[in-house]
């Protein structure tokens, strides 16, 4: 069940998108407008439940009068703006950004990225065999989820989800700077020594699989993870009266992970430890 709150009607504003007139409600981003017009703009740090940090820069577009390219995910559309999404300049930046990313982290579990790499002609290998990579060992320090920062693109989504935008636990943050910046808890301790309450909301928003369920991580390691054999069932969490929506991902009749629908107007994809991880009792067959 999806309920979309209507809110007060917003005025429409007009601008130009790739030479064509476009109309979007006031407050819409350039990305919203592109999507409404059927343009495929790649995005990584943008997420449907969070305010984007606009850090990945794959969604950049050209805006007339702007010295640099602008991120479509956060720039609001303005009346009379002239936006171009497919120029050589735009395509060049997207290509290089994809190359830079793919040359330093493992994007193998990032949905859609291989398609964009092809579409933009990115060649991540061209920085040579000695190009610095993150190459970190996955951190397996608790039974619920694994942090594999060798896959992390530093999109800040997990930090925002754990912090002021959703969970208000502030267990994780970006530490260090530049190429050495990493997501970390204080003093880079194991998660079990941190403030983490294992709500898994950070896993929910992670776009790369750098954060994943331990169950998924183990099955991938064993070669048994197979999304084509998985089914999804959305149901209501039975633990407490809030009644959050759960989507159970099943493979071979076992729950392999739990997500939550982002379009739910109450929870927006967020759960607590019980809803997210407390599924063992469902399949307890002893």
């Amino acid at each position, binding site marked *: 069940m999806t309920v979309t709150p209507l809110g007060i009607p917003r005025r429409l504003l007009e601008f130009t998108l790739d030479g064509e007139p476009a109309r979007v409600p006031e407050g819409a981003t350039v990305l919203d407008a592109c999507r409404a017009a059927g343009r495929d703009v790649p995005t990584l740090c943008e997420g449907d439940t969070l305010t984007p940090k606009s850090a990945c820069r794959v969604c950049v577009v050209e805006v007339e009068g702007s010295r640099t390219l602008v991120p479509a995910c956060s720039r609001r559309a303005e009346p009379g703006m002239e936006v171009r999404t497919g120029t050589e300049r735009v395509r060049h930046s997207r290509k290089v950004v994809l190359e830079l990313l793919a040359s330093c982290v493992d994007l193998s579990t990032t949905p859609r990225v291989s398609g964009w790499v092809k579409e933009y002609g990115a060649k991540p290998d061209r920085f040579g065999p000695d190009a610095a990579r993150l190459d970190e060992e996955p951190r397996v320090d608790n039974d619920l989820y694994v942090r594999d920062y060798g896959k992390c693109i530093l999109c800040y989504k997990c930090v925002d989800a754990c912090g002021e935008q959703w969970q208000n636990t502030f267990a994780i943050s970006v*530490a260090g700077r*530049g190429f050495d910046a990493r997501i970390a808890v204080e003093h880079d301790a194991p998660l079990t020594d941190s*403030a983490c309450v294992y709500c898994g909301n950070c896993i929910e928003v992670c776009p790369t699989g750098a954060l994943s369920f331990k169950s998924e991580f183990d099955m991938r390691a064993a070669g048994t993870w197979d999304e084509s054999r998985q089914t999804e069932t959305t149901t209501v969490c039975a633990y407490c009266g809030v009644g959050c929506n759960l989507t159970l991902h099943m493979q071979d009749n076992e729950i392999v992970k739990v997500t939550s629908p982002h379009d739910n107007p109450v929870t927006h994809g967020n759960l607590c430890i019980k809803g997210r991880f407390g599924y063992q009792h469902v399949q307890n067959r002893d």
Partner: protein
Amino acid sequence: MDLRFGDGEPTDEERAAIDALLGPPRSSWEGAARDGTEAADLRWARGGREARDRRDLLLPGLHAVNDRIGWISEGALGYLCRRLTVPPAEAYGVATFYAMFSVRPRPATVLHVCTDLACAAAGADGLCAGVESRLGPGSGVSVERSPCLGLCERAPATLAIRAGDPVRTAVSAPATVEAAVRAAGAPDAAPEEPPAVTAVPQAGDPSLTLLGRVGVVDPASLDDYRAHGGYTALRRAFELGPAGVIREVTDSGLVGRGGAAFPTGRKWQATASRPDHPHYLVCNADESEPGTFKDRVIMEGDPYALVEAMTIAAYAIGAHTGYVYLRGEYPRATHRLRHAVDQARARGLLGDDVLGQGYAFDIEIRRGAGAYICGEETALFNSIEGYRGEPRSKPPFPVEKGLFGRPTVENNVETLVNVLPILTGGAPAYAAVGTGRSTGPKLFCVSGAVERPGVYELPFGATLGELLEPAGVREGLRAVLLGGAAGGFVRADELDIPLTFEGTREAGTTLGSGVVMAFDDTVPLPRLLLRIARFFRDESCGQCVPCRVGTVRQEEALHRIVERTGADAAGDVALLREVGRAMRDASICGLGQTAWNAVESAIDRLGAYE
């Protein structure tokens, strides 16, 4: 907010350092010793909002611990977090952002040895090697290779910092291995630095406007400042009223001296007219552009000028609090400015009733902690607010939402100090100096292969050659770096470039912050370019992909071609160009956007790698 603090307890000294800044804790909530009165505490849930409003004390708190102990332990960080209601993970993220802090144990004394451009040209490599061999493990000194220390006119430079109460510092420049080692061993006994005026080769020239008082006035004496014309500009400002001051500054044609060259009057007007309050004034004294030291010289030699100029700016825009964000590596400037602010406050020139005019204004000094990026205005706001010094995306612009989300004017030291002659001499007289679009006097930081390095003041429009002439260029000039690491190189045969914003733009280069660094043909260009690339790699905040990874890929490419030219280098030069173009187009802030400028200009104008 649902905070969990670790088990680490601060040592008595760490606790004392933090309490000296924040006052003693008032409850066990805040980390006071448990003494059986906790029951009362439970009913008294202080902390919460009141404490969260003090998040901006996080950076001073980290300084307090680092200054006293030399590094920041888990216990100290935890206690500071408890006192300020800051999540430990976030505070850790902040502490690890700045180069001057360490979250691992290290010796109480850190010796920063500058290995940046001017120092490299003056033999920093040898100095560093010598120092390192003398101060090996067990010496009780940690030797750190540092980016530009802002002492380029006395290159090579070192700065020793010894933790304790109080923290002690010693600058050694020009440094020898002997002198640097001695300064690190006994910072108290180190010979005093030469006075600020030694950095002003034109001292005594009656035509100097901005530097006129440096060396003439006693930087510690408010009376002496007044005797030399101090505070006449502020009196004039009160006569004109805020709108009149803004009109005068607008008519003067003053544009920001930090590099972006935005009209100052327009910026002030935009902030002054915002209906939401409070308004803030922020003085950017972070000056971390390699090769820049003019703000240091002003703050060391004529600190009251900055205090007065800030008071005028604040009055014009309707701000009652001004922050000076001062480079952490400038101990003497910090000391002098702090003294000036205290004196001005004691004498009613700051405080509730400035000059008896019923206008309230005060200045807070905040020390940076070693992060070039904090010179970017929005990163600077984040830093003051107690967050990582990462730039914000714009819009919104600072005049609408700046420091603490309020309308804010940010100007650098040089820009502000220009306001004094505008008010004392009037806008028309000011605008008559310089050229039509670049008005007034301009400061240039000349260093490198010249006989008389230092800060020079010239009217806009003088040529590069006219600037270098009095500085005495040495034989065999190969190139001049204009505008610092974010600027560009020009050739030795381009000395007729006029030093104005429009003139340098026409010549395909930039004036930037006013850096003019000369290099002779003994300097290995590829090594220099590699140093620039490393600088940007080290200083990238890491927020956006083009800059975080692009700076690394560029440094790698420059490494590969450090001893190659022509066809052997062509592939990597092409790679540099492609990455550089995306960085310029797609990075969030000016750091990533300009990180490739200098190297590109060296390839295009100097034929590096040909």
